[in-house]
């Protein structure tokens, strides 16, 4: 299992990278390499050109301001895991991160790489779905933004054009009183989730659910928002019954079969994990209010 032959390119800037993407046929971008390198070694991917982003300046950062967090595409997952800003402003992402692979893969793997590879069971895309992430993209025509809702176009496929580079992800920050929770069921520590649930809740002064976001990973081609569940929650008083009722909507989400689990099992897990995430997120949302 050795990589096939390819030409290697190590651009220093985003502009240079975009030029290469425009000029090279059958090119693959190499970020942390935790997905692409296995595919090269197994020769599932046989690109003519590999464009290595690891030498590109200014793509690794965590910036927090103006009600949002911006993370550079080449920020290593372990940097995010230990970021004080992320823990404070986006605890959902902080909670999800230790579930990603293992320390060795998080030391190398990047936030942008996970989003661009776009495995439906991966944790970062699932959190991005819940957080209404906005993806910063640079292409030959300049910069543009893609909202997460528009990002998926199929299994392992994104709205990125072949000549576009993902450079950042922006996560709108929820209010200081919000509660969040990340739940996942994987066969082993660090495995891709069979199903995961990422949830954010905000309570109003009367103890009702003012705002709800619930995303499920691992179900279908991409992480999905549980719209019906969210609608069922809004304006309701939080509690075991409403969480169970809302979570039950997740059974209707599309899911796929694979060797690890049949679709019906995934749909069942979605209801269980959604309920557990809602309960924990609500406990946090309401505990903070009282504090």
């Amino acid at each position, binding site marked *: *299992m050795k990589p096939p032959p390819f030409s290697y390119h190590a651009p220093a800037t985003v502009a240079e990278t975009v030029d290469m993407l425009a000029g090279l046929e059958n090119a693959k971008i190499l970020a942390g390499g935790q997905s692409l390198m296995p595919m090269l070694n197994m020769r599932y991917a046989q690109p003519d050109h590999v464009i290595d982003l690891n030498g590109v300046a200014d793509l690794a950062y965590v910036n927090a301001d103006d009600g949002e967090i911006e993370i550079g595409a080449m920020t290593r997952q372990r940097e995010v895991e230990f970021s004080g800003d992320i823990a404070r402003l986006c605890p959902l992402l902080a909670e999800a991160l230790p579930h990603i692979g293992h320390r060795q893969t998080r030391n190398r793997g990047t936030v942008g790489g996970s989003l661009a590879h776009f495995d439906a069971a991966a944790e970062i895309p699932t959190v991005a779905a819940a957080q209404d992430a906005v993806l910063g993209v640079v292409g030959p025509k300049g910069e543009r933004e893609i909202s997460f809702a528009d990002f998926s176009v199929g299994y392992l496929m994104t709205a990125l054009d072949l000549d576009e580079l993902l450079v950042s992800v922006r996560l709108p920050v929820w209010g200081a009183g919000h509660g969040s929770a990340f739940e996942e069921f994987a066969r082993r520590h660090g495995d891709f989730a069979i199903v995961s649930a990422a949830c954010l809740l905000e309570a109003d002064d009367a103890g009702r659910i003012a705002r709800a976001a619930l995303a499920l990973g691992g179900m279908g081609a991409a992480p999905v928002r549980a719209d019906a569940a969210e609608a069922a929650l809004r304006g309701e008083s939080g509690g075991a019954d409403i969480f169970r009722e809302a979570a039950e909507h997740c059974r209707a989400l599309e899911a796929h079969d694979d060797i690890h689990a049949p679709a019906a099992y995934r749909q069942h897990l979605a209801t269980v994990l959604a309920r557990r995430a809602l309960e924990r997120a609500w406990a946090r949302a309401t505990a903070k209010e009282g504090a």
Partner: protein
Amino acid sequence: MSAEAYRDSPKRLEDPELLRGRGRFIDDITLPGMLEAAFVRSPHAHAAVSGIDAEAARALPGVRAVLTRDDILPYLKSEFLVVGLPSGAYKQQRDRPALAGEEVVYVGEPVAVVIAEDRYIAEDAAQLVMVDYDILPAVADCRAALEDGAPPVHRDGADNLLAELDVGYGDVDAAFANAAHVFGDHIHMHRGGSHSIECRGAVASYDAAGDLMTLWVSSQMPHSTLRVLVDMLGRDENQMRVVTPDIGGGFGPKLVVYAEDVVLSVAAIKLGCAVKWIEDRREHFIATTQERDQYWDVEVAVDGDGRMLGIRGALVHEHGAYTARGINLPQNSAESLPGTYVLPNYRMNVKLALTNKVPVTPVRGAGHPQATFVIERLMDRIARELGLDRAEVRRRNQVPADAMPYERPLKTRGGLPVVLDSGDYGACQETVLERAGWADFPARQEAARKDGRYIGIGLANFMKGTGRGPFEAVTVRIGTSGRIHVYTGATSIGQGTKTMLAQIVAAELGGDLANVTVTTGDTAATALGIGTSNSRNAVTAGTSAHVAAGKVRDKALAIAASILDKPVEELEIVGAEVHAKDEPGRIANIKVTLAEIAHAVSGTPGYSLPGGIGAGLEATEHVILDSPTYANGAVVAEVEVDIETGGVAILNYVLAFDSGRVINAMTAAGQALGGTAHGIGNALFELMAYDENAQPLTTNLADYLLISAPEMPRVDVSFRESPTPLNPLGVKGVGENGVVPAPAAVISAIEDALSPFGLRLSKAPMSPPEILALIEAARAGS
């Protein structure tokens, strides 16, 4: 156990080099001018091969050769690896060809080999080899394979029954006719892999000047490899040497002689240079042997107190596409089914079915985990049906300690009687019950259920024939350096064999482990060897080492007596010297070194040898030990099942085993722990999935799940020591003790946790979706 508990166990000789990264594993060997190989393998489970076009591959820069069957045939006296253990039960002879000819019968079967300047280029070229396949119907399931009208696994086969045998004794039908109760079940245990972290590999080197072919191979049995090479290449032993370097785990499949070993040897001879092949993990999934798929259809007859009167049934064993070892696995299973229990009447029909899958050969446990799973499932069933405590049912059926040695009317594969030689089976069970808190578990379970938690406890006993004979070769030699060299046909695959043998030899020869070096698995150093399998090294090699070292000791003392002019009785070996024993109040200070003794008998032209007992300070032993010695033990596992997800966590795991006298408590416990992890994997994680066309679906370590540290519980290991009378050390094998009972105990615990749902579990592994489906079905039915 921990460093404190191990304080009396010598540290391993193997460790310092391995810890510094200075081991010498197969891929660490690099020879001048060495080329590297990549195999072209069948992507189909069954196909006719109508042609191979290797022109593009041969034309690739850096490629030295592409060899197909036609290219290697001129170098082979026989193109088949004839390795099947003898038996009268075979219905078909299915030997593997070195490279496939006109038919391929499993995904992964080697079809051609590319030899290139490096592995990268070899893989580039392998992609360019065009093989024309005409796909034929494939058989994926061993039960379906035996049905009328099943497509043949081999085109020329009339059917897929490889072998059939009946095992048993007594008047089974009468026992069933008179039984108070009869319970039946269908029980399945699934195949898995060994997955040593080091895959296989070999380096073949041909020295034309000396006409010597040397094969370094990651094998548990290099002497078998040599014999196969002698048969196939038509060369004699003096023209070939097989050597095992450090081996990164074996676990069974590395005892097999593989086609790659032969092809690589031919390539080295044909090209006149060294060639390396290192199996990659994907190849390990499709080309290295696997084990365990067995379907049992069994009934047990019991009296009103739950004592077994008889077992009868049928076993269908999946054999894979070829015979790469023999019919030993289902023989082991059928022979060991009675386990640690008294079974008055027994009959099992055993069928081995060919399938279009990689051949099946022993993986750690070798048929015993399945048999243990079956008998222990039946024990739980009896307890449940009769409303008895599961431990009590086992007590009532256990072979009592005072019945040892206990002969069963069964024969081993070699025709010897099955005699359980020693042990106190009940005592091991009581040990684990006590250490696991079996008695108060019902109260804990009830309390947990009030909190909505489903915890369960399971128990399994096991016994395992170990130390399969007839012998292992050991030479003990003291050179003129004074150092003690030990050479053996046994191989070291991680068990600490070198340390174990050094301990045994040092015990006879001065007590200094640091003065002993051990060479394992080199056919040039040991003429007649067998190798490592079946938890046999301590028993067979250990015994030969003990006897050989004793002879060298006697010789050294006799020569020393002659040199020192002292009676032998007054001498002893201390470290690397022979001393006159101190007398009370007087230090003798009379000594001669082992080096001086070795010098004295190394021979000087024209001078006679001192001591009058011949030349050299060495002895070679092949102590014959025909009968296996039976290790035994018991396990209690405690689990928690999340009834919403089907997820299982192991909360507690207690293992007690009896391998007779323990030579090194640290390495004995270590092997039991590793086996336990493997067995828990067989219960919960390891699934080698194939589709209906026998295409493997789990060919990477992200899909095929090996247990990792967070899932693994801390295991409480303890042992009893019931020395066997069958060898002078009193030792029994250790290597497979952990794996054999684990699936039985874990599945039992899950069933117990789910007892409110009234489920019965009859297979391993159990995945979360399967557990959840059973819970939901039970709920829907209630």
